[in-house]
Structures are given as C-alpha cells and as structure tokens.
C-alpha cells in the first residue's frame, strides 16, 4: 500500500558539531517524508553496524543526533565514518521502508476535543468537516520527543494549519490529539501544551512497564478513526481490563 516512490532529498547531508560529544547529521532544512526517510535510513545503518564510542542516536524530522564519547572516538574520525553512511542514507532512503500503519480510534470534539469548535469556526468549517479532513490523512510519525512517547505527526492538510494558542495550557490530558501550526500530535501523557485539542484516543501510547513502551516508532504511519464519545468510554474500559490492544498493519 502507498507504494509511492520516495524522491531523494534535495540537500546533501551536513555534519555539524553539537558540543564535543555529539554530531548532528542534517539532511535538509524542511519537514518532508523523503528527508525524514534519510534520517531513519542513517539511524538503521548505524544500528546495523555499531560504531565504537557511539552511545546513542536520536532521529528527528530532518537530522540524526549522534551522541558519542569523544575520548573513545575522536570527533573528526567519527565525522569521517559518518559521511559515507549519510551519503548512502540519501541514496537508499527506502531502506527505512514503509512503516507500520495504525488505525487509531479518536473521539473528536466535545469533552474530548475542547478546541474543535473554535478551530472549526476559525477556518469557517463545520466541526464534521475538520474531523473528515483530519481523519482522511495518513500521517507519518516523524519523531518522538518533547515527552516520552509524544508523537509528532505530519503533514497536516493545509486547510487545517492553525497557529498555536497564545496561552499554553499548563496541562492537557494523555491521549490528546492536537493541532499546532502545520503539525498534529498524539500526546502520551498529561503535558503542558499550547496546541489546539481536537480529540482524544483511549489507546495508551506510552506504557513504561510494557516491553514495547512506546506504541509508535518514527517512520510508522497513523490514520485516525473517528469514534463516538460513548465508544471512547467503552474502549477505555476494555483497555483497562486488558481486553483490547491496538494492532497495526505490518511494515512493508
């Protein structure tokens, strides 16, 4: 499914020092699936053939942050090792493949999405139209960050792009589905947020005790499936009793 060809990133990778113990390999200066695919491809290349001294890699929208011990591997030597791998990642971004596809149940509006009405009014749309457009899209999980398991999804349809709230809320409920600028997100836990809350999923996306603590991985795909408020409660109950677990369509 969605066997779209992935165009190569337009920018050659840049390797930038981040202090003396990290390097940022940047694949561009934009949020785009092909750029993010190159980031994940480099991440996979390093995971497949670990480099001595590298302690951790952190993939984000357009860059891979490589943490290392500079007394175990000299920064310049690591740059020399990473350059050809970055070039390979650009040449073969498909190595990252098509991620798993999640059909995420989301109760839009009402108590579960307290900003849906104002956001719809702002765009001159009916609430149902916002829901239709938001749930029609298959989003890419670009990265996890900000808080444990917090998934940044994109790209949001242009018609739904909305600047962040002027006054961030000190707390928002776990599972909130929100819009901030050109991004949409699924929050994993109660966090402060200036994004617009349009819905909520009962499916936990961060479970510290679980073997797989985060539901989503970077590169996964997510499509929201609208459910009624009553179904939210029913599903939350089944999840609490261990009777329900969301299963994705496998990666290709």
């Amino acid at each position, binding site marked *: 499914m969605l066997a779209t060809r992935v165009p190569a990133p337009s920018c050659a990778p840049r390797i930038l020092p981040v202090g*003396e113990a990290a390097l940022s390999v940047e694949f561009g200066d934009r949020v785009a699936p092909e750029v993010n695919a190159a980031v994940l491809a480099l991440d996979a290349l390093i995971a497949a053939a670990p480099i001595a001294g590298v302690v951790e*890699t*952190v993939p984000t929208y357009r860059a891979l942050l490589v943490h290392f011990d500079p007394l175990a591997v000299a920064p310049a030597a690591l740059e020399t090792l990473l350059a050809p791998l970055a070039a390979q990642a650009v040449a073969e971004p498909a190595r990252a493949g098509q991620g798993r596809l999640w059909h995420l149940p989301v109760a839009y509006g009402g108590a579960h999405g307290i900003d849906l009405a104002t956001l719809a009014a702002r765009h001159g749309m009916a609430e149902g139209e916002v829901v239709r457009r938001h749930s029609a899209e298959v989003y890419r999980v670009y990265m996890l960050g900000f808080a444990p398991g917090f998934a940044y999804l994109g790209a949001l349809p242009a018609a739904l792009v909305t600047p962040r709230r002027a006054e961030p809320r000190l707390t928002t409920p776990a599972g909130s589905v929100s819009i901030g600028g050109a991004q949409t997100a699924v929050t994993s836990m109660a966090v402060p947020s200036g994004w617009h809350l349009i819905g909520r999923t009962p499916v936990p996306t961060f479970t*510290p005790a679980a073997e797989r603590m*985060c539901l989503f991985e970077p590169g996964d795909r997510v499509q929201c499936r609208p459910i009624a408020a009553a179904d939210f409660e029913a599903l939350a109950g089944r999840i609490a009793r261990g009777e329900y677990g969301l299963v994705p369509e496998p990666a290709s």
Partner: protein
Amino acid sequence: MLLRLIEAGPWVSIQDSGRLGYQRYGIGPSGAMDPVSLALANRLVGNPPATAALEIRAPGITVVVEGGPVALAVAAPEARVALDGAPHADNATVRLTPGQRLRAGPGPGAAYAYLALAGGFALAEAFGSLSFHARSGIGGLGGRALAAGDALPLVPPPPAVPDLVALAPPVHPALGDGPIRVIEGPQADHLAAEARAALYGEAWAVQPRSDRMGVRLAGTRLQHSAKGAETISDGVVLGSIQVPGNGLPIVLGADRQTTGGYPKVAVVARADQPRFFQAPPGRTVRFAPITRDQAVAALAAHRRAVADMRVVPAGRLPDTAALMAENLIDGVYGGERD
C-alpha cells in the same frame, strides 16, 4: 533498613548517572546534575561512583534511619550537614544511628548536594537507572516525586565502612572560577552578530526559576539574526544553550526535553558542566568560546582530575586543620572509626 524523609519535597530526588538509549522515545537521560559530587559522595562510603544517591537542592532535607546505623556522606562544592542540630563536616563520612536526625543540603555557594549511603537504595531500576524523571513518571521511588514521610529502603550496609574525608583543597575539581567554556553551534547563525558578541562579553545571572530541566539566565536580551527564533525541532544535548524568542538563554539540564525548536547557539563544554550547574541562583557566570579540540582536551583533563580525587582515612590527615576536623568527627561520633 529504611531512610525516612522527615522534611523533603520536589527539590530532592534520587539520581545516578542516568539512562542512555531512550532519547529516541522522548525519555531524557536524567541523572545527577553534578556527577563529580555524586562520585565523591559515593567514594566516601565505599560505593561505586555512579551509585544512586539523593540529589538535594535548597532548602535541604531532614532524614532519620530506621532499623540500624548507616554510614553516609554529603558531598557538594559546599554542603551543609548537621546531626541533631550540631554542624558536621561536609565531604566526609557520617554515621547516622536510629534516633538521630540528619539535616543536609547545599551551602549558599552551591546548587546541589548529594547524600550517598553505604550500600545504596534497595529500589528497582527503570530502564537501567534509578534516576527519577518527573515528566516520564519513572525512576526513584515508584516513579513519583519524593515527599515528607517517604521511606526509602536501603541495601543492608557492608559491615566495615571506614571514616573517610575528602582531601582539601580542592575538594572538588569542578570548583574554580574563570569563564564557563562553550563550543559554538550548531545554530549560532540564528544570533545577530552583536548578540553573539554579547553572549561572550556580558555577565549572566542564574535565575531562581532554574531547575533540573534548564538553567535560566538573565542579562542582555539577545537579538536573533534574520534566521529567527525557531528551527525545525531537533535533538538537544546536556548543556545546550538555547535562545528562545525573548532573547534570554536557557542552558538545558539533565531533565531537559529530548528535542527542541529554539536555536541552540552553543554547548557548555562537558568539563565545565558540573561547575556551571552548581552555580546557585543569583550567581553570575561568563561564557568563553573554545574549539572542539580544546573541549576534548579539557574533558580528558577533567576525567583525570575526577579519577584522582582523593579520599583518605579520617585519622590519617597530614595537616593541622585536618587534625582538627578529625577531632570534630571523633567528638561527634565517639571514635567509631577504625
């Protein structure tokens, strides 16, 4: 055995060297803001240097031990230690017996003190570390913030822990004045030229709102270049200096978010991070740019200094001042040492 917290709050948490490998999931490393003092506290009680300890900010804590005596140490560039109200030497082994109240915290010249106990805590690790991370709700005592009344289970202490003191001066290789060394980048071009000069030319005051997530600095408001005050969110490191829209730098600490979208204009050199993070609210600091190669050399020297940090038996101190310290210790503890 238990360590009971009599006076405590969110300003105290259990920290070790932190957890690596989970930033890709949005879980930061956490860990001690000053790993040098953590290592020193542990060395004074015979523990491996990264054993989990209590990391304490002002106004400090009061604890008692239940179930038997325990050897502990409170380390910081400057710490306040008192047993039943009587001042006790910092950076030295302390014997705490049931019924005695220990008060401990950083002195006015430090931000963090570390209370290590011989044997350590009998608590379960979360993702390879006991470090508490508030936002993730993991680590420490069941993933929640500590509060007065909490009881922390202790590993039964080893039978013979000698009385030790840290050799002074300098107790703490992270001490020392002079500017905090930084490596420029990766987004230094988001600062206007004058702002870049101001970052290294002006003094910066540590604000009281600073915490384990970040140290907020007050001073000249730094103007951004035409590139602006936002970037595409990417990874951050310990010591990243980010400059948000208001122009006031924030230096990211151990409980930082894993990614950030403000320009990250420089990074505090690892060798200077413990010293920087120990700067208490109100202290002013200056930054000086160095090359990456200089930072690596400084880190190598720093690690040697930490490895060479000496603790000696309390009874074998060579100089008069130390002998007086020994007498003080004997007076308080009735000569319990070897």
